[in-house]
């Protein structure tokens, strides 16, 4: 059965995420970061940042609220039971610090089929309160037996 490609290009409502100092620290500790820029606001300020700096992979935290609804969109018809997160790419701009307000918009970038597998590719674009692109994410999910 061929995959349904009608959702390609679909965009979702932007989500806003207010980056909190303690959330950055909680995330940094969970992934084993020891750089004081992530854990100590004084060290971050001494280095010229307004507040603690988010590790690059914190992009997961501020962009997921936008990406998650696209994965569950019935129009995308992605079979979760047979799905694995196959690949991920992030491209970063200026660093995110506590106090930033991040707006993320998700879209369906591509849906295709190869060798009986469906490839569902989503994109997230995240801007800070100054309109600078802080991250672009490409989320690839693979569904077996389409």
């Amino acid at each position: 059965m061929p995959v349904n490609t009608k959702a390609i290009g679909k965009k979702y409502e932007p989500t806003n995420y207010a980056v909190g100092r303690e959330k950055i620290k909680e995330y940094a500790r969970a992934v084993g970061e020891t750089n004081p820029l992530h854990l100590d606001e004084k060290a971050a300020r001494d280095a010229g940042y307004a507040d603690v700096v988010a590790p690059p992979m914190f992009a997961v935290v501020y962009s997921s609220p936008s990406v998650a609804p696209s994965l569950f969109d019935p129009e995308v018809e992605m079979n979760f039971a047979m799905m694995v997160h196959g690949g991920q790419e992030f491209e970063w701009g200026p660093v995110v610090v506590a106090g930033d307000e991040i707006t993320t918009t998700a879209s369906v970038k591509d849906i295709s089929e190869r060798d009986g597998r469906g490839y569902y590719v989503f994109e997230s674009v995240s801007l800070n309160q100054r309109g600078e692109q802080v991250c672009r994410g490409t989320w690839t999910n693979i569904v077996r037996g389409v």
Partner: protein
Amino acid sequence: MADLSAGAQIPEVRVTPDKYLTNRYAGASGDFNPIHIDEEFAKAVGLPGRILHGLWSMAQVARAQTEAAGGPATLKRLSVQFRGMGVPEQEVVVTGTVRESTGGHVIVDTVAEQAGNQIIRNAEAELQV
């Protein structure tokens, strides 16, 4: 900053996720998929037990790059493929080799493995130093 000339190996990151790591990462990231936090659920869907979040493992790969290059602002791009399954309480080892290095722009081929199995493969990092 580590040696990031072409052909250099970046310093390894070795980390053993403890028994409760997946719970802490679930809370920190917001990903509460029960395959990561519920042993019985994971087994019921055919997994060996709870598995690591792929994005936690990717964060270890990211950390290896930023520790080598001197901080969070150096990492400009990271793309990975998730393969196999990471499990708690077994050491994860991130290694990488500099493929290109020109004018402060560095490309690193990098992987994460656990007990000899690559859990992140074909990863490519772009650094600006």
